[in-house]
Structure formats: C-alpha cells, structure tokens
C-alpha cells in the first residue's frame, strides 16, 4: 500500500480522510462504534463485478448481485459516514456529503452543481436526498411513440411496475392508501406521514384550484423497521433530511442496500476514486485503476459496472479512452455524455399571516402530480409540485438568487422565515444532444481531467416552466399567500448521459444496462434514462438496478455474461 509522507493511518477518524472499510470490517451504521465483518478481495483476483459508485444504482445492484453469490467490490470515492456519530444537525457542515470536486460549467444555462444533484459518500446522493419516491407515468416509457417527444425506453411500463413494487417494498416506502394518478398500484408498505402546515397548505391550494393532491410517498419510516439490514426508528421530523439523517429513519442506499451487500459478502472500498477502466486485447474490460490511501492501484474484474451518475459516469468512460477507443469506452454511438438532462425546479413563494414553521418534518410531505397526467397543454412533458421546507441558508439563497436581495432588505425579509410557504416543481426537460458532459482541461486532486457540463434550456423547457409558475402561483394565491414571488431558474436531478435503448446506433446500453460495445462493461444509474419525466428519479434508478440484477442472473444461468 502506498502512503503519503505524513502517514494517512495516523490521522483523525474523519471519514473523508481515512478509509473505514478495511481490515476485514466495515462500519455498522446502526450501532455507535459498531462494526460488521466484511469480506475482502485481493487486487489480483478478478472479481465477478466491480461497481463504481454506491448510490441508488450501484448500492442496489451491489447488494442484489452479492446476494446471488457473485463476488462484488463496490468502489466509492466518498467517505463511509456513520450518520448517528458523524452528522451534525447543520446546513453548512453537512456540505461534506456533496460532490464538491472541481467541475467546469458552461452554456447559456449552466447547471448549478451540489446538494441538488450529487453526492460523495457511501450511499451516494441518497444520503442527502429528500426521499421522494415516485413512479414514472406509464406513457413516459414510450414517450416518443405515445406522446410524441423524447425517446422510448427499451422496457415496458408493465415490467417497470413490477420492479417499482419490489423497490417500494424493500425500501419500506411510506405513502398514501390510494394514489390519485395512473394505473392501480399496491398499497405502500408504511402508512403516510402526518402533514406539517406546509403540506396542509399545499393540499388546500390544490383543492382551491380544483386539482388532486396526496401525501408524498417517502423513503423515511413512519413506523419502526426491523430487517436483515438492521433496525431503524421512525422519522423524528427533524427537517434536516437533505443534510443527512442522523437517526437512520431515512431509507437510503447507506441504510438499505449497503448493509445487505456487506452481509452477502461484498466488499466496499471507501475513499477509492476510480480514474480509469482498463481494456484487454480481447475487447473486454480487465479492471479499474483507482486511487486510495495516497496512491494508484489496479483491481482486476470480470465485469465493470459504472454507477457514478450523469456527470461522473460519462467522465469515467471518456477518461478511459485508449488507442482502440480514442473517443472513450462504450461510445460507438458517440452518445456518451450527450443528452444530459436536468429537471426544472422552479417555485412560487409567498407569506402567510399564520405561522407555518416549515423547518419541521421532511420538506415535501404533500404533492400534486396533476400536470404529469393531464395532456391538455401546449408543450411536451410534465411536472409535479411539492410543499417546501428550506432551512435558513437555503431560504436565504432563494431570496438572494431569485430576488437579488442583500443588505437590510435581506435581513428584513428573512424575519418572515416562519410565515413563508412555497410550492416547487420537479419538471421534465427534453433530451438534446448539445447538452452534454465532456472533459475540461482542469485537473482535479487525483490528477484526472474534470467534467465540463454544458447546458441550454430549450423553448419547450421554458414553456413548461411558465405553465407551472402560473399554476403554482394560482394555487397559493387562492389560499391567501401575500407578497408572492417566483424562483424561475433553479434545477435539480440529472439523467441521460449514457442512455439505454434497443439500437446500438442510438443508445449506449441495452435494456439490461449492458454496453453495446463492450460486453462486460455496464452502466447502472440515472445516466441510462432516455427521458427524465416529471418526478424525482431515485425510485426509478433503484427499480432499474433491481431489474438489472435479475437480468444478470438470467444471463449468467444462460452462460451469456
């Protein structure tokens, strides 16, 4: 093992400085100071699967492949946090969960990176996600054929419905008894959470303009949970969900899938940044170069799964270019990095006479998906909106960003914090090849070229946002919100840079997340989405990962891996 001159091993127990999953054990996040045994693999041993990333895609797939008996190593560039001990109840300090390595943004509408769209920790961005667990509208899986825009998925909605149900059960989603939109779905495993005032006001606003609402299906427990992965308490309504859950009530890859992966014999390598996938003369990947403990190492593998999300996944494929693949790996279609999509995250805010105190409870307890299912509009795509609960710094950033406030005006506006409400959309943006991830010349702390993220909004995207602003504004105006204002240009989740499809010329991977060009190279995260829909993506990423695990078991049985 290479070490730095200062000797990494002597440093503090900061999970961002020193790997914790070592010496045959990994943190038991359910017990303070606890450990669970962890199998370790030699670098010279070609494991069945190396997975790069431990979030909604990689964490899920790692657990399920290990449970099938495959040898698995899950690499994670971030640290292995123990939520009960390492997480402060603080917006600023918990910036430690975001991917804040160097990146270059350009294009007419640069995407602001950070807490809304990236994570760097075991568990990935699910460690700080808002836990909103929604299904796609069925038609979106064939949006080109049935709705006339975007691209079709190579998987039917009926099949996805099957995997959504598995995901909801295994994650123990809390949700309403009946869901107002789309085909019938099973009851959510856990009851819906009580609404806070922000949620009740969303409901009142929807009723005032005559559209349906419901309790948001959430990946946080509404009752105690006991499972093979560990025991978790119900949600304590701290309101710091997007800054890490300190009680483990949140059902993230860190609390759901990683413990299962370890129990089934997978190894997790934390603080291990994969910088390059190596290829053999036979056109198959041979393993990965990764940086850990101050030096570069090589891990052999029979299969490599890239699960770094829509920026880091294409970056790794592009950074792995070699003489045979000068444009990067799995890029015969030329589409690696292209069709990057974010989702619009516009909002309308206003002040109520009554106290709201939106800091209590998960931020998005109530939702309307009305405009995801109503096609009576003059643009493509859909959107939902949810109640909001920004903590002080996030709220301040709305006032400075959307209204340009500073000085006495800002301090004065902040005094209304406990009386504010807001409704915020998650809106579908259309794929466009010009929106993309490429390599910049800047070099990061590992010596790797960083991602350049280029983005422009299209006319359809702008029309969708304007429609949502009118609808959202009408809903809170109808219940007495005062001094309303719009936040127009915010964005959230990502997708699309390694899209799946039925045709090697127009997609990067097939329906099983297997790359068309290199049979033992896979992509399993939000990058594979041909379209992003108007809902948060985490449940769909996990459903895809569950499906991929099932497909791999079939392929293995048929000798086709």
């Amino acid at each position, binding site marked *: 093992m290479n070490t730095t001159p200062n000797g990494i091993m002597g440093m503090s127990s900061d999970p961002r400085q020193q790997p914790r999953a070592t010496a045959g054990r990994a943190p038991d996040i359910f017990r303070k100071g606890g450990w669970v045994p962890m199998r370790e693999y030699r670098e010279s041993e070609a494991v069945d699967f190396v997975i790069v990333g431990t979030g909604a895609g990689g964490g899920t797939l790692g657990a399920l492949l290990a449970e099938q008996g495959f040898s698995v190593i899950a690499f994670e560039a971030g640290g292995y946090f123990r939520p009960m001990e390492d*997480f402060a*109840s603080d917006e600023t300090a918990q910036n430690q969960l975001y991917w804040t390595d160097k990146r270059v943004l350009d294009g007419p509408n640069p995407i602001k990176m950070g807490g809304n769209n990236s994570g760097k920790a075991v568990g990935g961005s699910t460690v700080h996600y808002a836990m909103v667990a929604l299904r796609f509208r069925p038609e979106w899986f064939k949006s080109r054929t049935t709705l006339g825009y975007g691209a079709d998925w190579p998987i039917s909605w009926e099949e996805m419905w099957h995997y959504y149900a598995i995901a909801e059960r295994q994650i123990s989603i809390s949700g309403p008894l009946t869901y107002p939109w789309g085909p019938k779905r099973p009851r959510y495993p856990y009851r819906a959470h009580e609404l806070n005032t922000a949620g009740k006001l969303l409901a009142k606003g929807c009723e005032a303009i005559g559209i349906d609402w419901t309790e948001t299906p959430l990946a946080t427990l509404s009752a105690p949970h006991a499972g093979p992965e560990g025991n978790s308490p119900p949600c304590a*309504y701290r*309101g710091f969900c997007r800054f890490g859950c300190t009680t483990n009530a949140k059902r993230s890859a860190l609390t759901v899938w990683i413990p299962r992966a370890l129990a089934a014999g997978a190894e997790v390598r934390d603080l291990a940044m994969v910088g390059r996938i190596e290829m053999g003369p036979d056109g198959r990947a041979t393993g990965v170069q990764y940086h850990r403990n101050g030096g570069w190492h090589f891990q052999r593998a029979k299969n490599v799964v890239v699960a770094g999300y829509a920026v880091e996944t294409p970056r790794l494929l592009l950074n792995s270019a070699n003489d045979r693949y000068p444009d990067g790996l799995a890029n015969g279609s030329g589409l690696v990095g292209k069709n990057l999509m974010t989702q619009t995250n516009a909002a309308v805010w206003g002040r109520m006479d009554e106290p709201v105190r939106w800091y209590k409870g998960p931020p998005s307890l109530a939702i309307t998906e009305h405009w995801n299912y109503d096609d009576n509009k003059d643009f493509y795509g859909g959107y939902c909106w949810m109640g909001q609960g920004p903590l*002080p*710094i996030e709220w301040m950033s709305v006032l400075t960003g959307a209204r340009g406030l500073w000085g006495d005006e800002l301090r004065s506006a902040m*005094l209304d914090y406990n009386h504010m409400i807001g409704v915020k959309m998650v809106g579908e943006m259309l794929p466009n090849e010009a929106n993309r991830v490429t390599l910049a010349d800047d070099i990061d702390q590992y010596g790797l070229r960083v991602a350049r993220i280029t983005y422009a909004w299209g006319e359809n995207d702008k029309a969708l946002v304007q429609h949502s602003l009118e609808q959202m504004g009408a809903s809170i105006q109808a219940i007495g919100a005062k001094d309303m204002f719009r936040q127009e240009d915010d964005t959230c989740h990502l997708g699309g840079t390694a899209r799946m499809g039925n045709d090697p010329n127009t997609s990067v991977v097939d329906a099983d997340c297997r790359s068309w060009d290199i049979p033992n190279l896979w992509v399993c995260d939000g990058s594979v989405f041909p379209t992003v829909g108007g809902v948060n993506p985490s449940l769909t990423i996990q459903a895809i990962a569950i499906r991929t695990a099932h497909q791999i078991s079939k392929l293995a049985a048929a000798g086709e891996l």
Partner: protein
Amino acid sequence: MTEPSRYPGYDVLAKRDTPSWNAKTREIIAQRLAVPDAPRFFSTEEWPIADALCRRILPQTDEADAVCLVAQLDAKLLADHGDGFRKESMPYMGEAWRRGLAAINEEAKSRHSDRGFAVLTDQERDTLLLSMQRGEVKGNRWARLDAKTFFERRILVDVPALYYAHPKAWNEIGFGGPASPRGYLRLDGNRLDPWEAVEAESGDEHHAERDNGHVV
C-alpha cells in the same frame, strides 16, 4: 436593524445540552464560534476590503453581538469549503475572491479620488455594489472577472450564508436550529414543542419572552 425582536429572549444556544444537539453538532458550532478574528486566507491588504464588503452585504450596525463575517469568510476560503465548480468565465472560489476584492478596491479608487473601498462611506459602498449587481461597471480591472457574475455567484452566495449559519441569526428568525436526535412532535405551525421559539404578538412580548426562557 432597529426592529424589536420577534422572538424576544429566544437563545438557540440554550438548547446546546438538550437532546436537540448531538455531540457532532456541539463540536462544529463551537468551532464556528471560535473562528479567529484575524486573516489566514486573506492578506492584510485584502482583509479590510472584505470586512467592509461583508458589513454592507449583511449589515449589523451597532449590534453588540455582531457576527464577524469576514473572519467566517476567511475560514471558509482557507478550508476551501464551497461548491467546487466554476463557471467557464470564472476562476475557482479562492482565486475569484482575490481577484474580486482587488477589482472592487480599484473601482473604488477610480471613482473616489484614490480612496479604497474600506474607507468609503456606507452610501458610496452600496452605490458601487449596486452597480456591480446591475452589470454597470466596466473597464480593464474587470477583464479577468465579470463583476455581475462575481456579485451574484460569489458575494451573494458566500457572505449571507455565513450569517445564517450562526446561532445569532437563528434566534433572530425563530428557527429551531439543530434538531438531532430530537426533532419535533408537533408539526403544525401554530402548535409548538416546548423547545421552539415563541413569536411575540404585539402587546404580549412578555409572554413570549417568558416562554423563550425555557426552551429545553
């Protein structure tokens, strides 16, 4: 600000040793309150410019318990604790601040007969900052850094966040503050747990002040 407190007597630090604050929270807030009031990232030339800037972006005129924002900014830049990315036209955070402060000072000197930003009046500072926000400053001193982008994407992102990361600000706006492991039992806005700030109603400030003395 001369407004009376909306949450009289509320002190979020009174909850420091209650179940609302876990050990890690106590540790990081203590660090934040102990940030040294002296330049470590900034040079001795940059510090007074940054200080004057912070005092206009988030004014705390004549407040005895004012938060030293320039010290917090210095600590943030020293730790490189930011969002990581840069816009194509901008340098990364630390370099952007160095270039930005130098340009603001040169802009001040050219407008005010060689008086630097740190010695301008509040009115003169605000006028200069407003012209940056409006994209109305031009010239060679801004060639390597767009003034409007620096104002919107660095100054307004970095400086106010330091104030609203401070317990003093949480008291001011009635935020519950740290809540781990204990969160909240009563989710309604008008039903309060005993450890939440009580908002004063006009004429009944004493009632709120009495309750806010017992946020445990």
